[in-house]
């Protein structure tokens, strides 16, 4: 009996100590600029405030202009974690040793995304081979959609220096929405983006659905995975994990999840990166040698 009481008291003490320690902590969370960076911050602010309310841990977002910056500046900006896309997450896991914490689930289960190659309907392009000599617009070299493009080029037998001359020109928008609008507005002939944004803009803007069509799409890849840096305090990690996992049971948490269009979070695992690792491998990417800078 005394032993039990001691354990209960000790657990309570540890929890209180962890909460007290966490209460004074601010964590810096990086955001990959998948879409308009300002909206990205605005969308994620409710989640940050929720975490603060529940754990006392202040969450400060830092936005990175390019996907690859999250790898390069993760340490310099002293980030504790980040919402990674599929490929950036995979890169960070290998290069920085980040550990996946949670990934979102939607009404249909785990939230996944595909990379899509799209063109204007009036472009006359109907196959990937017709893309040769066209102007291309990409999101980022460190995005999964770019890896998918490399995969398709590899399938088309375009390898090595030939890849550089396959398109007549290309540029990186840094975010998915702008890539879609670049093709729609004629800034490029072909574009690559995450399917979620293509679907979103198709729903919001009739011109997108009317004038663009998807030429190719990848297999399902993880959409977002929240990872924490290597060496992140386990107690705080556990607190964050518990808070995020229990959000779907908390009315306050449910409201925040709805604003993010999620149903909840589940524990993320290292194996969640397997689909993107396979895609990268098929694209001929050797991660240690991969130059993701634009």
């Amino acid at each position, binding site marked *: 009996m005394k032993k039990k009481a001691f354990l209960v008291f000790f657990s309570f003490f540890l929890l209180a100590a962890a909460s007290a320690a966490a209460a004074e902590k601010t964590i810096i969370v990086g955001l990959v600029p998948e879409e308009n960076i300002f*909206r990205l911050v*605005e969308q994620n602010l409710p989640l940050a405030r929720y975490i603060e309310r529940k754990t006392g841990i202040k969450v400060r977002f830092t936005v990175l*202009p390019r996907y690859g910056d999250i790898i390069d500046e993760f340490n310099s900006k002293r980030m504790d974690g980040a919402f990674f896309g599929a490929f950036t997450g995979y890169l960070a896991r290998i290069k920085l040793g980040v550990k996946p914490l949670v990934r979102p689930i939607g009404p249909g289960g785990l939230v996944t995304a595909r990379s899509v190659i799209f063109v204007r309907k009036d472009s006359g392009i109907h196959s990937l081979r017709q893309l040769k000599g066209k102007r291309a617009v990409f999101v980022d070299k460190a995005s999964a959609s770019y890896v998918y493009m490399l995969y398709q080029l590899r399938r088309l037998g375009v390898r090595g220096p030939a890849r550089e001359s396959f398109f007549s020109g290309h*540029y990186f*928008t*840094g975010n998915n929405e*702008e890539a879609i609008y670049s093709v729609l507005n004629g800034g490029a002939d072909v574009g690559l983006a995450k399917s979620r944004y293509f679907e979103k803009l198709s729903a919001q803007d009739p011109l997108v659905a009317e004038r663009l069509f998807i030429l190719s799409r990848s297999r399902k890849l993880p959409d977002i995975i929240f990872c924490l840096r290597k060496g992140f305090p386990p107690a705080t990690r556990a607190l964050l994990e518990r808070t995020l996992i229990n959000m779907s049971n908390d009315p306050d948490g449910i409201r925040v999840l709805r604003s993010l269009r999620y149903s909840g979070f589940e524990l993320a695992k290292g194996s969640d990166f397997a689909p993107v690792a396979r895609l990268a491998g098929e694209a001929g990417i050797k991660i240690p040698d991969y130059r993701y800078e634009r």
Partner: protein
Amino acid sequence: MKKRLIYSLFLLFTLFTLGSTLTILYIYRTTFSLRTLIALHRVEIIRQNLVISAQTVQTHLYTIGTPYDTGVDEIVKNVIHLDNSVHICLGCHHTPQMTARLTEINQLAENYKDALSNLITTTASPGRIEKLRMTAIGIGTMLLDKSREMALIANNKLNDETLDVMQQIGNSRIILLVTLLLSFCIALVIAVTMTRQITAPVNALVGATRHIKSGELGYVIPFKGKGEFGELIDSFNDMSLTLKDSNGKILRYLHNLSNLYSITITFHSVSSLTDILKELSEGVRNLTESEQSGILLRDEGGEFFSHMYPACGITEENAKAMKISSRLMEELYHSSMRRPLILNDDLQGSPTAAMDTQLGVRNAMFVWVGHKGKPMGVMRVANKKTGDFTEEDARLMAILGNSFFVALENVRLWESLRLQMKELKDTQEQLVQAAKFAAIGELASNVAHEINNPLTSILGYAELMREDEDINNIRRDLDIIEKESLRARDIVNSLLEFSRKKPLKVGLVDINKVLESVIELIGVQTKDSRITIAADWGNIPPIKGDEDQLKQVFLNLASNAVFAMGKSGTLGVRTFVSGDFANIQISDTGKGIPEEIMGRIFEPFFTTKNEKGTGLGLPISYKIVQSHNGFFDVESELGSGSRFTVKLPLGDKTVKVLPVSITPSGSGVPM
């Protein structure tokens, strides 16, 4: 007054309510305006923030890619501030025109965000990047212009609003001040008016109470008012007048009572019928303020009621002429139910109607003096000119009548008592003389043989002379005979002297000398006994008294002492002065007085000498000493003896020596 108070309080309350309402209204209005102004200022701050944020972002745009680049996070922070400001503005209520402007700004902000995001995240050729930068700067400039334009409009409105509010505050201040002053002035006027209305009658009442307190009964407050104070003052005035009347009545009653008392006292201090009649008639006249007053009394025969004289306002001749038969008076007494006859302006029914008419009487009153249900007299008062008689007069006269009758009875009793006292005095004198003789007799029986001794000697020497022829012997025997004869004569003379009835004679008495003569008498009595006499004479000044009576006292005490000692003992006689008294102590060494009879020794006819005593010696002695303003002190111890001390006042204090009388007394030893 109550209504006035209620109206005043209601007016004050209304004034207070109006003032409070006005104040609250203006405070509410002013604070509302201030709130609006503060809200506008807050909005202005938001607009300013918007402008500042936009300007900051614009500045950052020019520094992107330069060493002065502060990073994306700074831009994000400012853009989010900018966005928040726009959304806050949009969230407020505006005119449609303003809403349209704000919507336009909002759209510009959205475009600005897109342009900025593109510029920040895009990696393209320098030309494309520059194009994106210029696009963003252009949108930013437009946003700034629009924001400034809005801020200008808002600022103008804010200025106008501020001026309005300042004007309102100024107006409110003036109105509040005026309201406050007005309320204060009105309240002051009401308070002063009310205070005056309340204090004026109260002061008048206080003043009136002081007048009344100082004895000015009947003081009337001149204050005229309505309402409760008016009623109060009227009541007070009535009370004051009533007090005055009551006081007058009380004084009158006191006067009458005083007169009654003095007359009654006088009744009991006079002892003759003439004096009583005189006092009665004068007293009645004073009490009733009548012109004639007197009393008719049943005469000794009981056949008539005759008017007594002295009387007031009537001559002796007229008084004597008023004689009414007792039968008529008794009929009148019973028919009137013993109530007084008050005849004002109508003398029909007056028992003295004829004389009344003759004397020109207008009003008359008869008050009965009865005893044991029978009329013993009737007091008569009459007026020729002055006022009517009242029931009150009758009541006073009835009281006086009762006192008169008592006084009359007292006079009769006093006369009777005086006669009885005279008889008693005579009897007592005889009794004292008898006691004296008894004492002498007692003494004589004791000293008889003393007289007999010289007689025997005389007889014996006479026989010897008859037989003796020697002339010398005969002469010697004759000398003895002569001496013995003289001795016998002295004894007899002493007895005669003592037993002789003498008139009371008050003079200065030498106590020691009186005692020496008593001892001489007692010495004869104790000659054949072993009783010694021890005398201790003090220096006593002469006292005022009757020498014979005092001698009787001392002889009696000494005789009792000798009797108590029997054949032997010491008779002590001592005189001394103690305080204001001459002390005469006569003591014996006899058997003493038992305690149980100590309290009775001064009772008349109480004696322990059986047939040898009369029981009058000590009572008479006590009375004599008492008549000399002195007193006895008796001490006795059984088996050791007794000591009687007579204390007589020195100097002129023994003022009045009265004839001694004896009354049976159950008291103990008088002290």
